[in-house]
């Protein structure tokens, strides 16, 4: 070990390194925000999508499902459920819950109106069209 290894220098390196990498992170974030409109499908955000996202959140869907791979791992990925199942299946599914099959995982009945379910589906459609670098690997999510 080197004879010179001082606390004050270690501290300086900590501050310098911390600030340095945070600035780098800000720079990358800045670039990301600039590139994002080409990838994030934000041109398709309609009032229905906006309302759908709110419904997604206020019913805590993320507490069981994943969306683009983030969330709980208890129920299927929904980032690509729109292409996987199609709108009609999704609507019927939400309305049909819970299945009540003994021993099976149960999804609660959220008592959404038809219009609300349409908005939720609009949100899932929007989410499925985000450029995710080809994730998930296949349609099963």
């Amino acid at each position: 070990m080197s004879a010179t290894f001082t606390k004050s220098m270690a501290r300086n390196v900590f501050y310098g390194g911390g600030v340095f990498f945070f600035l780098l992170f800000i720079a990358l974030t800045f670039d990301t925000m600039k590139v994002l409109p080409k990838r994030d499908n934000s041109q398709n955000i309609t009032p229905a999508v906006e309302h759908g996202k709110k419904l997604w959140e206020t019913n805590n869907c993320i507490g069981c499902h994943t969306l683009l791979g983030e969330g709980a791992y208890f129920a299927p990925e929904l980032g690509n459920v729109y292409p996987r199942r199609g709108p009609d299946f999704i609507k019927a599914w939400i309305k049909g819950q819970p299945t009540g099959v003994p021993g099976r995982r149960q999804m609660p009945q959220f008592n959404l109106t038809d219009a609300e379910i349409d908005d939720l589906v609009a949100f899932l459609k929007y989410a499925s069209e985000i450029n995710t670098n080809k994730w998930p690997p296949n349609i099963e999510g």
Partner: protein
Amino acid sequence: MPPAININNQDDLPGDFAIWIFIFAEMLAFGVLFVAYAFSRAQDVELFNASQLTLSRISGAINTLVLITSSYFVVQGVAAIKRGLNKQCAHWLTGAFILGGVFVVIKMVEFHAKFAADITMSTNNFYMFYLSLTFFHFMHVLMGMVILAMIIMKAKRGGYSTQDYVGVETGASFWHMVDFLWIILFPLVYIIR
């Protein structure tokens, strides 16, 4: 804790050991990125070669000379402070600092040309690496300049002595790292194809 006194133990790394941990970490990060560049290139040689030809090799080469020379100035600065010459040390380091500034200006001109041509990190894999590596390195140059500036100010106040010049060596070590990373980066990204 006694003040940092360097008795210049021949075995030890020049400067404070804390900066060396940082230097080794940085070398590791750059090393992985260099190798990642090389292997990504192997996946798509044509694209990399074609994009590589759009870079300004002359500005890359000039920048290499600029950094090498600034490193040389830093060596002279350290030699000066070892003889206790604060003022001369400050002069040499100021020279290095100015050359750092030249590097930054040339680099910014280069970046500007690329952005004007609408080239970003998302254009293709080559530009992703080119911009990532050079920008990451660019920030190290800026940080090195900040460190040099602090040492210059302290040296101007006569803050170092033949007994205590660890601070100068610490900054010098960082600057040399910035130099040799560019020495690898330049041929890798600009020249070899």
